[in-house]
């Protein structure tokens, strides 16, 4: 259980949440896209702007020295937040996307060659997918995909298979922005390093805001994350890397601040971190991010984790009681954090989120910048509620109540036209593999033929089946009607 008193106080720190939307309290459940900012962060940026602002570095006057000092201290603060002692290895960028592109254009351009392999999970956000896909196309390198299991966790057998190709690079997300799955970073790193020399990038966009971060313990070579998902303003992100790797990388953007000397025909680069921070950086953003680190540490990342687990557990329970709603991803709150994607009655996620929005419930809907994953699970998109320190059980209750109104508007249209035509490849709840959405009469687990969550209240067979989750890929006949299909091997396990 988490410290309810502490978190009741937290909500009051966020001025935006004091607003009402058409008389309703604002229910902000979109922090995985962008989090809100507490008074402490807003004030830190405002105070800096009011009293200390000037461009950093070479200004030989009081204000510039003050500004430079605050910017450097912000870097040290962020370094401490992720367990880094060598502060210059923390590079400020705009966001995770820029951090990963920086790597693709520097490390990637230097080290990836024709015929090389790059391993990455199919559940990656486009920001950790497209830069590598494009690099692979430029270099004639191969992408080696790591598949997911039906419950939304990473398939470690598939990882092993990818590793047999001796990839030079493994890049993966700490936490899935669709399923909320926490990938076992240390185990993945151990398996990858056991195969030989490999460079490992961790996309921490969803992980760092929620989980205590210590790059030494995680064992990765690079970590990318964004400030705006952890209580900071937009436009500030981080790339951390091991010093020996950063120093061997070519420069990325050229211009002011990043040089040590410029001649008419050549230039040389400054040391870390300047060499990767061309131009005037986001000074205010860095100061905001440092203040956000202070705020998060004042709550304690362990306490934040407990709060998230309690909220997640409550949300899963409540959503599972809503007829026609299905939570995607692992149900074990130890395996997930931050986000909760769900499916609701065959109603398109955009229709759901428009209707929820009218009730003051802010969620995100669609492919969540994970189109390959959506194709993999056979869904056009999901509706996603995501939580952070300022959310509480009442937010979940308002979400559930608003879903009731969605159901009312769409009464009688429980299945969309695509529903029968486009069965899903897997259902990601309880490990049951299910082709059809819960609202379809056809909905049954394809492995054990147990009825779906939809019918759980009627027949309590859901829990009596523990399908084998180790099979990496599910081959499904999407063309033959189920009634004409030969039952799969192992068929009915329960009575």
């Amino acid at each position, binding site marked *: 259980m988490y410290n309810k008193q502490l978190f009741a106080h937290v909500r009051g720190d966020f001025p935006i949440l004091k607003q009402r939307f058409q008389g309703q309290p604002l229910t902000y459940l979109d922090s995985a896209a962008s989090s809100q900012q507490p008074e402490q962060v807003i004030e830190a940026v405002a105070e800096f702007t009011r009293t200390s602002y000037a461009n950093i570095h070479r200004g030989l006057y009081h204000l510039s020295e003050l500004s430079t000092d605050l910017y450097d201290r912000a870097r040290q603060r962020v370094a401490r937040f992720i367990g880094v002692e060598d502060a210059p290895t923390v590079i400020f960028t705009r966001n995770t996307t820029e951090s990963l592109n920086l790597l693709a254009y520097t490390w990637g351009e230097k080290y990836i060659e024709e015929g090389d392999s790059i391993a990455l999970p199919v559940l990656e956000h486009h920001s950790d997918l497209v830069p590598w896909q494009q690099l692979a196309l430029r270099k004639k390198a191969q992408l080696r995909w790591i598949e997911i299991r039906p419950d939304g966790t990473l398939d470690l057998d598939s990882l092993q298979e990818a590793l047999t190709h001796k990839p030079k690079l493994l890049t993966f997300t700490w936490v899935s922005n669709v399923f909320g799955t926490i990938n076992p970073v240390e185990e993945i790193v151990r398996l990858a390093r056991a195969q030989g020399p490999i460079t490992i990038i961790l996309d921490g966009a969803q992980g760092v805001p929620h989980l205590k971060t210590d790059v030494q313990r995680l064992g990765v070579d690079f970590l990318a994350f964004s400030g705006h998902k952890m209580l900071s303003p937009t436009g500030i992100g981080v790339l951390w890397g091991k010093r020996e790797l950063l120093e061997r990388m070519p420069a990325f953007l050229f211009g002011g601040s990043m040089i040590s000397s410029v001649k008419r025909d050549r230039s040389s680069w400054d040391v870390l971190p300047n060499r990767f921070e061309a131009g005037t950086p986001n000074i205010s953003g860095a100061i905001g991010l440092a203040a956000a680190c202070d705020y998060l540490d004042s709550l304690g990342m362990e306490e934040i984790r407990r709060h998230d687990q309690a909220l997640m557990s409550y949300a899963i329970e409540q959503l599972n009681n809503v007829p026609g709603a299905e939570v995607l991803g692992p149900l074990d709150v130890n395996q997930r954090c931050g986000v909760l994607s769900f499916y609701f009655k065959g109603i398109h996620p955009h229709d759901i989120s428009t209707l929820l929005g009218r009730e003051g419930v802010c969620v995100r809907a669609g492919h969540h910048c994970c189109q390959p994953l*959506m194709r993999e699970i056979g869904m056009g998109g999901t509706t996603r509620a995501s939580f952070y320190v300022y959310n509480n059980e009442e937010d979940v209750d308002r979400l559930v109540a608003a879903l009731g109104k969605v159901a009312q508007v769409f009464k009688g249209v429980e299945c*969309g036209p695509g529903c029968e035509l486009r069965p899903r490849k897997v259902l990601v709840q309880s490990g049951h593999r299910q082709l059809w959405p819960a609202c379809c009469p056809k909905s049954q687990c394809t492995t054990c033929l147990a009825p779906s969550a939809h019918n759980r209240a009627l027949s309590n067979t859901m829990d009596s089946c523990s399908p084998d989750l180790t099979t990496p890929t599910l081959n499904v006949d999407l063309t033959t009607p189920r009634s004409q299909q030969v039952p799969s091997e192992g068929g009915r396990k329960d009575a």
Partner: protein
Amino acid sequence: MPNTASDNLINDDLYRQIILDHYSRPRCNHRLEHPTCSVEGTNPSCGDEIELDLLVKDGVVQDVGFVGEGCSISMAAASMLAEAIKGQPVAKVRQLAQAFKARLLSHDDAQAAQEAQGVDIGELEALDGVRDYPVRIKCALLGCNTLLTALDEAQKD
């Protein structure tokens, strides 16, 4: 088989009953066997997709079919549009599509009426409510924009 939306008692300004009816029972929701042209349309930001087939002969849209995946607004709009253009002369179809598009992109009813220039868009008026949801306008226009591209394609041949 899903019920029709006719037992939906809520009269919503966006999700009108006729929209939900077209969503649950889309018209012309199939591919054509020998189309004059087939055009694919997508909304990259939301992932909605539509494939539209036209059979154009003697300057008339003899047949139309579409399949797609998307929200109720995009699918219902495509269905209503398909139904409205079947059997109509190409010139009239183009006029209708343009009038519908102008109407959705206008700010209010007065401007909408002016933009439509006297073209009767029939059932498609039910989508007027979408104007109050700026991010959803592109959903309502997916089928329409795809149709306009398809008409250009058809006339090339």
